[in-house]
């Protein structure tokens, strides 16, 4: 793979700066025009609720939510400073993403050349996947940025023998592990690279790496102990199924083409033999796998492979967004690979890649992505139609976050199973045996019930059937991303019913 030392390395250039400014403007405009106005998604609503609490409460909530607290604390103070709106919260993710674009350029320039850096930064800026998370109130752009910076400083150490880079490396490593648990994979990949390419590193590197590991251990252990002490994390793990090879390739496809519909995604992943052509065409005289490419390859494959194997053998944790930190490495490898093609072919390959990603981005921006959750529209409908004598039941309980954020109606909201977020412990599990009793308790004094179903946790059908068999359904509405609203009449012996009968 690519991997030449460019004559241009080490020089900046007004041209590059202009392109980077153009990319930043493009991303900002895209966000303002298309993404910023999208409905709040479940995870985002959860972030907003969590970060609206005190720093101490944030720590306990985040610990229980199987995450690490840096982004939540940052968002908490960000909202204190700039306001409470969704747009303000999303702006933090966007800004971190904007910082990441020049950071990736620097990493590409350091690893390969200016042109590779610029092309990788371009791919990053038009990435449907990255743009999606750049407009989501979660930690993923911070995670990606810290990973890019951390990789940059690590590369400065082994490529330029810049021992001063150890300090920012350690700093970004510490911030990284407090941003996402998967940052440890990035560090482990670096450890593996050091083991394989020790000769590249300046003297004393082993001491620095051991020192970094010790420092991270010392700082992170209290957090682990705190999490264990709370004892709640075990109940809050994401409910994921064990990944298959389809998930593995879907992740790679998502990294390049974002979240597409099932049909289009099938087409994309079925094109995998194209990867062979891409590799064949890179077979060129005098082009070897450079140390930098080996490093990025290790970051990508070690991380994806470890997460996949761990998910199959131990516990499912394989989610594309958890692996977002590998995207800079993927784009840099792709950019470097296409750069070694003969010049006309390289140009065509790059143009095709950019065109395809732009089409995917446009599809994502225009129709919203397939993961879009329209809680805003659902909540607005409820606010408009639910009456004071109605009750709204959300299932599963955690969908309370986005609905309560948007809902401003007369009917009270509750969840099934019933859940009090302020009480420590897991979300109560669904019980078919107590369902009748639970429903009776929730609906006792109401005439109608609105059931809002989404994010099926395995009991959605039981719930729906129970209401279908016991109550009269009046209405059914479906919203994007499998949000279903069902309206049932609970009784006819009410004042309203009598008045209507007379």
């Amino acid at each position, binding site marked *: 793979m690519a*991997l*030449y*030392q460019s004559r241009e390395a080490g020089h900046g250039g007004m041209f590059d700066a202009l392109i980077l400014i153009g990319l930043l403007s493009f991303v900002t405009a895209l966000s303002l025009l298309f993404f910023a106005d999208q409905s709040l998604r479940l995870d985002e609503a959860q972030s907003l609720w969590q970060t609206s609490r005190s720093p101490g409460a944030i720590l306990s909530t985040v610990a229980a939510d199987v995450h690490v607290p840096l982004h939540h604390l940052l968002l908490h103070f960000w909202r204190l400073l700039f306001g409470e709106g969704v747009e303000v919260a999303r702006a933090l993710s966007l800004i971190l993403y904007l910082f990441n674009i020049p950071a990736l350029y620097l990493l590409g320039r350091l690893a390969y050349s200016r042109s590779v850096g610029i092309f990788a930064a371009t791919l990053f800026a038009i990435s449907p996947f990255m743009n999606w998370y750049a407009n989501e109130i979660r930690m993923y752009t911070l995670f990606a940025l810290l990973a890019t910076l951390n990789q940059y400083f690590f590369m400065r150490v082994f490529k330029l023998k810049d021992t001063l880079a150890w300090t920012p490396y350690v700093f970004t490593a510490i911030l990284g592990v407090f941003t996402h648990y998967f940052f440890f994979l990035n560090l482990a990949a670096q450890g593996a690279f050091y083991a394989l390419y020790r000769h590249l590193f300046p003297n004393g590197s082993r001491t620095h790496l051991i020192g970094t590991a010790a420092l991270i251990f010392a700082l992170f252990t209290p957090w682990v102990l705190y999490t264990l002490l709370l004892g709640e994390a075990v109940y809050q793990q994401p409910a994921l199924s064990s990944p*298959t*090879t*389809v998930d*593995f*390739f879907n992740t790679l496809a998502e990294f390049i083409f974002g979240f597409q519909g099932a*049909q289009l995604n*099938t*087409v994309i*992943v*079925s*094109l*995998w*033999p*194209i*990867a*062979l*052509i891409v*590799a*064949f*065409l*890179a*077979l*060129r*005289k*005098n*082009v*070897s*796998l*450079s140390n930098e490419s080996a490093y990025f390859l290790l970051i990508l494959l070690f991380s994806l492979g470890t997460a996949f194997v761990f998910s199959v053998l131990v516990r499912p944790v394989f989610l594309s967004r958890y692996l977002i930190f590998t995207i800079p490495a993927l784009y840099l490898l792709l950019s470097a690979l296409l750069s070694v093609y003969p010049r006309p072919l390289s140009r065509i390959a790059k143009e095709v890649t950019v065109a395809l990603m732009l089409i995917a981005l446009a599809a994502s921006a225009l129709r919203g992505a397939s993961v879009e959750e329209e809680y805003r529209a659902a909540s607005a409908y409820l606010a408009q139609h639910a009456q004071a004598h109605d009750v709204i039941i959300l299932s599963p309980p955690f969908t309370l976050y986005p609905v309560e954020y948007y809902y401003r109606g007369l009917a009270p909201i509750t969840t099934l199973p019933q859940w009090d977020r302020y009480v420590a412990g897991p979300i109560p599990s669904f019980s078919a045996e107590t369902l009748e009793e639970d429903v009776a308790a929730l609906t006792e004094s109401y005439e109608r019930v609105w059931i809002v179903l989404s994010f099926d946790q395995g009991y959605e059908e039981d719930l729906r059937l129970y209401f279908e068999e016991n109550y009269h359904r009046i209405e059914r509405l479906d919203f994007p991303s499998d949000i279903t609203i069902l309206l049932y009449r609970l009784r006819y012996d009410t004042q309203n019913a009598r008045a209507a009968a007379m």
Partner: protein
Amino acid sequence: MDEQQYARTAFLATRSDKVLFALSAAAAVFYFFLLLLYFPIGNRTLFMLLVIGQSFHLWQLLTFIHTVWDTEHEPVAGYVDLSVDVFITVTGEPRSIIEETVRAALAMEYPHTRVYILNDGYVAGKDNWRESVEVARELGAECITRTKKGGAKAGNINNALRQTNAPLIAIFDADHVPHPDFLRKCVRYFADPAMAFVQTPQFYKNAQDSYVSKSAWEQQELFFGPICKGKNRLNAATMCGTNMLVRRAALEEVGGMAEESIAEDFVTGLFLHERSWKSYYLPEVLAEGLAPHDLGSYYKQQFRWARGALDIIFRYNPLFRRGLSWTQKMQYLASASFYFTGLIVAVYASLPLLFFYFGLVPLEIAGMLLASVLLPYLFLTLYTIQLSSNFSYTFNALAFSMAAFNVHIAAIFAAALRRTSAFLVTPKEREGGSAFGYVVPQMLYVALAAAGLIIALEREGLSASVVNNAAWAVMYVVIFATFIRAALPQSSARRLPSLNLSPQIKRVADQARR
């Protein structure tokens, strides 16, 4: 060191990474066993063809790894004072080419040499056959003109053998110009009385002259780099018929060069090894020749090599030759069986077409599961080849090896049916006329793939299977397009840009040179 010097050394700076080799072999074996035992079978006939193809690839990869496992073996050399007869085989090549080679042969830094032009122009019916006589007279060499036909190049050499007497014989094709130090560097290995021949690379000095010559040389680099070097360890060096030094006694013991095969060199090497003679491939460019300029020349050269190599399997099967060690048998089989590649490529390339037209598939398996096993295996294989050849192996080399399937298939049939094939000397000048006749099968494939895709889309829409098979077909189209491009007139005429060597490669080449 200039670029040409790097071109002479870079492909010889082979590398060996045993961990990578082991991983690569493991991935290939793993894929093969999954294919054989785990993957659900679709059409049984296609599945069998797939298994046969994969068995062949596994054989190729494992023998390649075995060959290149250690490429640094060198026999003991010493002082020896033996006179040398230099044979330059000529069959009507242009005078200027012969002159250059004869001058270089006469200028070799070695005391006891006599240079002979082995003139086959007369028996070959070439109008210019007298030119060789004139060149010999003018330059101070001797000319042996054959008047009795038979045995092609081998017959020519054997004829000269009977009329000369030096204990060592250097053999060069008319277009292969020896360096002054050729003999000085080769003779010393004959201090070992069991050494039968020393072979040096068949380097093409005109590799940058045209698209075809460049691709032809890039294809050769893998062979003359890690493969030939690796064969040293196993005493199985391939005799290539030019740029070599042979012991007369050894050659006489096996009855001279083998006249009954058009790959007389390869077969003669086999006979020598069978009689326990030793061989050595000296990994240093000590003579420089001419690559085929155009597709027609390339086609003829490849057919001759393929036909001759396949004779090893069909006529002289090493498995049944008693004097060879098992590793030598494997080496000869591995080299000769390379030319089955064309048949396997044709089978594999037809799989997408069979799906397009008839909906037949060899495996009924989730594409992603196949990809998760096949891609690591293929990428590791590619990297193994790349690394072992010091990153000399190129897409063009790969594409020419695969896309010349029609040449290989023609040779397989000729060898299997024992048809007589004429010994056609590779033309040293550009041939006139269109070369598109050589790429009709490849162009037909492109047309069939395009039409087939439309039929498949009509039948089942943009399904995962259609898309996946389309991607496979595109891969073969890209590969075949490389060969079709070689048929364009400018592909045999254009001067290519020079190499731009990276510091990393230069460093390795420098080390190898030292």
